């Protein structure tokens, strides 16, 4: 039985797609057969971040509408065994997502995959609702600033009331926080919220803190999930988060500013 994970945030631009790509890759690297689905119909991005944009023929919406078979739309990653991408349509809109259609595709995927990762669009409308409806587990992506925290809080409320598990009175969707774009130096200066401030408001367990890193943008631009960048702090932090997700006990790092010796200055520049 596969597990359905939704990567969601409410707010846009906080790193859902980056985190989805990294997380799916991390799960596949650890041997789990994983598929990552782009729910951002009309604003297709996941394929770019995963570096498979030139191989998209059919998409998620084609499968929902019965215009293509699932294995025609699934794209197998060239780098990692066990990793598949289900891209979305750039020409349609969120209304193309029907609950029945999404359920049908998820049911079919769950026969083959260990993990199904749903990359949610921003907002709390149809696209986001469809991406979280069937979830067993939610990863809430939040930046350390007040508007992102408030929107994450809102999406947690939506998960608790409008997911399938909530509607059917099943075990609630488990929820974990992924704090991204965290800059310990700016936190120290009081320009960003501290980890604890965010946790106090959201009151859910912390899955990981991803430090602000130039490696993220660089990786996105070349279509490589940042987790594959094994020298970057962001890549390592994602790797830790995947480990924690799977139940490993890993200490949080990159939450306090690093001491600045000459050596680390050089290292940081290259990282």
């Amino acid at each position, binding site marked *: 039985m596969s597990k359905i994970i939704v990567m969601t945030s409410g707010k846009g631009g906080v790193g859902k797609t980056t985190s989805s790509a990294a997380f799916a890759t991390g799960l596949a690297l650890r041997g789990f057969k994983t598929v990552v689905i782009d729910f951002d119909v009309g604003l297709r991005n996941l394929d770019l971040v995963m570096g498979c944009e030139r191989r998209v023929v059919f998409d998620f919406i084609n499968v929902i509408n019965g215009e293509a078979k699932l294995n025609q739309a699934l794209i197998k990653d060239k780098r990692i065994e066990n990793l598949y991408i289900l891209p979305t349509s750039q020409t349609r809109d969120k209304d193309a997502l029907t609950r029945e259609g999404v359920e049908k595709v998820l049911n079919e995927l769950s026969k083959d995959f260990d993990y199904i990762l749903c990359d949610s669009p921003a907002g*709390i409308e149809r696209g986001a609702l469809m991406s979280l409806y069937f979830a067993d587990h939610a990863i809430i992506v939040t930046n350390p600033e007040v508007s992102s925290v*408030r*929107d994450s*809080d*809102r999406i*947690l*409320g*939506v998960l*608790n*009331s409008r997911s399938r598990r909530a509607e059917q009175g099943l075990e609630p969707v488990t929820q974990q926080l992924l704090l991204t774009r965290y800059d310990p130096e700016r936190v120290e200066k009081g320009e960003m919220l501290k980890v604890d401030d965010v946790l*106090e*408001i959201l*009151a859910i367990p912390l899955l990981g803190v991803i430090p602000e890193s130039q490696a993220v943008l660089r990786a996105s631009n070349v279509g490589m999930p940042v987790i594959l960048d094994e020298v970057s702090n962001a890549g390592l932090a994602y790797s830790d988060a995947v480990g924690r997700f799977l139940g490993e006990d890993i200490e949080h790092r990159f939450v306090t500013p690093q001491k600045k010796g000459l050596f680390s200055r050089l290292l940081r520049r290259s990282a």
Partner: protein
Amino acid sequence: MSSASQVAERDVPFQLRGNSFTMMVLKVFAPTSPNFFTQLNVKVRQAPNFFHNAPVVLDFDDLPESVVFDLGAFVAQVQALHLLPVGFQGGPQPVREAAMAVGLTPMPSGRAAKLEEVVKAPDPRQPDQQAPIAAPQVLIEVVHRPTLVVTEPVRSGMRVYAEKTDLIVTSSVSPGAELLADGNIHVYGALRGRALAGFSGDTNARIFCHSLEAEVLSVAGNYRVSEDIGSDFYKKAVQVFLRDGVLSMDLLKTG
């Protein structure tokens, strides 16, 4: 002008109207049982006021076809317990005829409500206590409406309304969340959202919170936004209430 005097002014000596009455039904299973009246007596004594001169309908539906008993004597014994048999329903033909002969009215079969709970309701230690018929259940609802208790965090965008009662939240209330109660509001986590007590106008309602960080506080429409709350109360345990019609705040003593 009342309807009674309207009737009086008209030139008719009566008016026929439909009405419905609630009556007890005495289901008769074994009228010849030697224990019948001793047991009925025990039941009646549990709530004498309730049963005194209460009209009852005798239900013969469950009598065996072959039953033979003296209906006149039976009715007299029921009357001796201060119950007033006024009608009957069901039963074998001979029993029906006998019932008509002693002046009981054949009733169309109605929908029976279980009386057993109501009979048990009066306190046996105070047998003379006034025991209203259907009132207990209704009264319970009016006198005590259960408080709405929320144990999960109240998230941004959520709205909780405790209609005609109090609201207790044992965890935190996020910014952008809204609590409404016709009664009091208690928050045992941090109150960071809005809290509106006495929502339907109860000026005695209050808000109690463990850590006051609210966006808006209101009692019976008198409100204060977070800008006006003042740093003396920020993140403190506070109660909010109306003092001479003005929204006031007091620190709560804790520990």
